[in-house]
């Protein structure tokens, strides 16, 4: 009857969103008066999940699951959920978890709500709040099935350490029904922070005038340990690759700090980045709509402000290191 939470790792190391999900599951389990079981696949140091509120960890180690495979992962998580008799299953909103979620929902015959931003507003009936219309609104949705599946939005629930420890139990999974799929190639930049994982995102728009000026964005991102991103026109014109396009039809951003440089702030862009906690705008047009959606702004020429910002941040980082 426990709350089951799937904790995702990459090359064995838990992602921060995994700890957010365990903290969320703990908050949920407290209101349901039950315990938290975490399930994890090929992760290292799994007992640490106890620090965030897991009472038990189901530790799946399986060579067939070395590479992520949605159907196989869904089958493994389903097996853990059934074994635990879990009534609520909690996932994160990473690309891979969102891939697994709908498969899991059918396996468990569970109503599914994604992009959940807070603990349930009610547990009887079970009602959760999620972001909809690409962050332009929130919805309260009742999950009517016996088993409930929710995916917690990134950066929506704070990681909370608790005084506790988890017992670890290993589980062998059978993986009887998986399809034949060959992962032919994986290309991944390992030296760059991804938009999905980044605490800070630095983003550039048409105001930067051309791809040759992108060193400003890259240098600023480097000082801050940030990911780089861009507006839709910039990606459509081929100045920057698609994977950097953030906004309603691109990637969503839910970072702690989002710095928009030379981006006017079309409604689609603002929707895509609105889940970021603090937004800074640098733009020479004081009428740019982004100023209405930002927390801090500087009206001025990016080509003067950004180099100065880079230099002063370097000095600031050196002082505060």
């Amino acid at each position, binding site marked *: 009857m426990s709350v089951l939470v799937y904790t995702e790792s990459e090359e064995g190391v838990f992602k921060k969103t995994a700890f957010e999900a365990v903290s969320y599951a703990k908050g949920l389990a407290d209101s349901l008066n039950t315990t938290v079981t975490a399930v994890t696949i090929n992760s290292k140091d799994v007992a640490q999940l106890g620090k965030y509120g897991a009472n038990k960890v189901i530790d799946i180690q399986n060579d067939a699951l070395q590479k*992520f495979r*949605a159907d196989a992962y869904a089958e493994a998580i389903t097996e853990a959920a059934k074994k635990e008799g879990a009534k609520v299953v909690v996932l994160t909103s*990473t*690309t*891979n978890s*969102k*891939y697994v979620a*709908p*498969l899991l*929902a*059918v396996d468990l*015959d569970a*109503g*599914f*709500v*994604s*992009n959940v931003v807070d603990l349930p507003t009610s547990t009887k009936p079970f009602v959760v709040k999620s*972001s*909809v*219309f*690409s*962050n*332009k*609104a*929130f*919805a*309260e*949705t*009742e*999950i*009517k*099935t016996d088993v409930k599946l929710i995916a917690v939005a990134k950066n929506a629930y704070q990681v909370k350490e608790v005084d506790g420890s988890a017992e670890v139990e290993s589980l062998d999974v059978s993986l009887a029904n998986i*399809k034949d*799929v*060959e*992962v*032919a190639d*994986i*290309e*991944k930049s*390992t030296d760059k922070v*991804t938009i999905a994982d980044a*605490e*800070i995102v630095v983003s550039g728009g048409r105001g930067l005038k051309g791809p040759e000026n992108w060193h400003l964005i890259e240098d600023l991102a480097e000082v801050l340990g940030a990911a780089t991103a861009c507006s839709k026109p910039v990606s459509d014109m081929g100045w920057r690759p698609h994977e950097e396009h953030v906004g*309603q*039809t*691109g990637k969503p951003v839910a970072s702690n*700090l989002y710095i928009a440089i030379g981006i006017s702030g*079309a*409604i689609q862009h603002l929707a895509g980045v609105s889940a970021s906690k*603090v937004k*800074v705008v640098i733009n020479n047009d004081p009428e740019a709509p982004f100023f*209405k959606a930002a*927390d*801090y*702004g*500087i009206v001025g020429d990016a080509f003067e402000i950004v180099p100065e*910002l880079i230099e*002063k941040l370097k000095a600031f980082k050196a002082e*505060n290191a």
Partner: protein
Amino acid sequence: MKILVCISHVPDTTSRINFSDNNTKFDTSGVQFVINPNDEFCLTRAMWFKEKQGATVHVINVGGPETEPTLRKALAIGADEAIRINTEATDGYSVAKQIAAVAKEGGYDLIIGGRESIDYNGGMVPGMLAKMLNYGFINTCIGLEIDGNTATATREIDGGTETIKTELPLVVGGQKGIVEESDLRIPNMRGIMQARKKPLSVKDPIDANSATQTTKFEEPAPKGDVKLVNTVDELIDLLHNDAKVI
């Protein structure tokens, strides 16, 4: 090859979102509806398979008669036939059940739709369909080639891409990249005229309960005023001491 493209009828990306009936209903007044952008990228890729590889392309939607102009637009872009399942789309699970029932009869080799719709952002219909039909499933797909019975798909992963080889039948959740923005087609007059004559069949829904029910909407809290600063030093100070994000 028979392809089924799932089409969501959604508010245009520029729409301001308002609610009526004490915040329980999405207010559609003054809203322009379009093919969900992620679905349109997929439809455009399906057109490529039709033109280069002789595929047949059907489009499907779950919704009332008000969604038909969106299906007609898909026909004008070039789909051969449209199917509308005549019931309100209440949640992703029930929509997937409705489409699965039709797809089972249709014998499709490829079922393709956006990785998520831009209205409810559930991101669940393609995956659920795959599971219900026992098809393979590729999500966040940004490149798709089909050769005989073999599909080679590139999908976006956090921080990179992954290329997968698998067999048909397959369900694909696609997004921008499966075709480029510049590949999208605006229907021409000939396409619009032809679309009027193409079959649009209306099917009765099966009995499928929804698993979730949205009871209330809320607009985001109004944003406080922006704090304009004049110097970079002031900005750094505020981000460090006030917002505590650096």
